[in-house]
């Protein structure tokens, strides 16, 4: 191809290392790729908005002891149901606890739940899906029927059933959500593996004598990973809402834990006169779900070059 003619000022230092034409180590090559992906991501304002929201969430959770005035659990009955003010930014709830504090501490719980679910769901879905798609035949049929069983149940109902069987509590809620969430990922991974299986680079690997294991982990997984990650970020909203739903029903984190769903549940009786009590945690859920959705959209544009210009 003819080389394009362009001129740009030559950068120095780290940027030069990141933009240089000839990478000298595998690490440099990978960093360059990540940097280019970051530049593409940065150019998308919607994606950046999502990233900022999630970054704020993570930062808030990390810095909780320093940005809150208390632990959100100690009661202060003299201060019940105060509206938002300079002293209590989001008001206080029926037990006099600062709502802002509770939301910030509650974000740790939210992150814990989504993080744990993600860590369980992604590997399980990937492995089952890829093995199913790559190996094919009876293994494919068996694994997919197994997946179908989980796919057939409505998420919240199955979660309820699990929690009812295992007892309420945050870990059981996480397990229940994970069990109901992993099946679509297996389907996605399987669909990708089916396409990739016939690619020439897989054929090339087979002619070199690569074992199926090496092909699956070295060749197929890296390509399926991006669509699964994108799906996870887009699913986050659903996971958060399911967790909130369980919390609302009293089956997730138990009081006095500042879990956002539970906060809405206990606060809903005040919705008419002291609207801030259930509304603030509701807005928190909305914002974080939106943040994950926007982030997921942005990631998809960057990681899946087929969709979009």
């Amino acid at each position: 191809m003819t080389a394009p003619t362009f001129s740009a000022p030559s950068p120095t230092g780290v940027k030069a290392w990141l933009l240089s034409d000839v990478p000298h180590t595998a690490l440099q090559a990978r960093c360059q790729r990540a940097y280019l992906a970051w530049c593409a991501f940065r150019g998308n304002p919607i994606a950046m908005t999502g990233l900022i929201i999630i970054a704020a969430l993570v930062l808030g959770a990390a810095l909780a002891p320093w940005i809150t005035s208390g632990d959100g659990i100690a009661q202060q009955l003299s201060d019940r149901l105060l509206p938002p003010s300079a002293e209590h930014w989001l008001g206080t709830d029926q037990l006099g606890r600062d709502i802002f504090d509770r939301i910030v501490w509650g974000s740790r719980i939210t992150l814990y739940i989504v993080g744990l679910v993600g860590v369980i769901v992604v590997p399980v879905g990937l492995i089952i899906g890829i093995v199913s798609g790559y190996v094919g035949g009876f293994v494919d049929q068996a694994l997919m029927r197994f997946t179908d069983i989980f796919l057939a149940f409505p998420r919240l109902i199955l979660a309820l059933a699990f929690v009812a069987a295992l007892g309420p509590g945050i870990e059981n809620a996480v397990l229940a959500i994970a069990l109901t969430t992993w099946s679509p990922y297996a389907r996605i991974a399987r669909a990708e593996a089916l396409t990739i299986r016939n690619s020439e680079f897989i054929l090339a690997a087979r002619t070199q004598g690569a074992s199926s294991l090496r092909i699956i982990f070295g060749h197929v997984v890296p390509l399926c990973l991006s669509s699964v990650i994108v799906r996870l970020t887009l699913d986050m909203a659903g996971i958060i809402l399911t967790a909130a739903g369980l919390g609302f029903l009293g089956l997730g984190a138990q009081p006095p834990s500042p879990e956002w769903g539970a906060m809405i549940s206990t606060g809903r009786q005040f919705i008419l006169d002291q609207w801030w009590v259930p509304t603030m945690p509701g807005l928190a859920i909305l914002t974080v779900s939106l943040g994950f959705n926007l982030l997921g959209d942005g990631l998809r544009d960057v990681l899946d070059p087929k969709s979009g210009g």
Partner: protein
Amino acid sequence: MIEIEDLNVVFGRAERGVHAVRDLSLRVEEGESFGLVGESGSGKSTVLRAIAGLITDWNGRISVAGQPQGKRRDRHFRRQVQMVFQDPYGSLHPRHTIDRILKEPLKIHRMEASRERIVQALEEVGLDATFRFRFPHQISGGQRQRIAVARALIMEPSVLFLDEPTSALDVSIQAEILNLLARLRRERGLTYLLVSHDLAVVGHMCERLAVMRQGQVVEVLAVEQLRQSTPDHPYTRRLFQAAHGYDPAFVAQLADEALG
């Protein structure tokens, strides 16, 4: 070196299946460059893949270097016989660096995967060490095909299967790759089995060729015989003439046959 007898490849169920290769028998001598020519649907690529063990729905007898082959291929075979594919982008993993792509066969066969070995492999195909950590999408089609050749030869095989190695490349790049392949064959005494729809490429690279049509071998002849335009079979003659460009008289002749 390669002996095939009564090879039959059927995809799908026997009755309604596609009989891609019928009763094919071939011999390729050691050190020879043998071409398989045919139009699309002739089964030429299928033959290659059956010998390479990439497809298993075949029956007949396949023997490579005196060893009869079954459905699977062992490690020894994989070191001896390597393949270069048609699509230069498709045959390299998009997320692997060139270094990793070249190291993989060495790692699979537990051979030493040193920096020197990789750089030497790159230099053999006319590239240099700066390519080591690039990704496939950062290099041109011709360069990618050179990497594919380097990868195939890094284990020092004795037989190379070439499945339309230059069909996706520009004509000027094709010339470079064909020269490279010819030089490597001379230097290493390799046996080539080249599949192509382009008669001129096969005529240039090979000593003998087999013409295939709809899964069967129509004729096996020496390139010299083709050149003096004395092939026996009318189909071969037709392919030969078609390769010379547009000729209204010749095409009028073709048109009389079933167009469908």
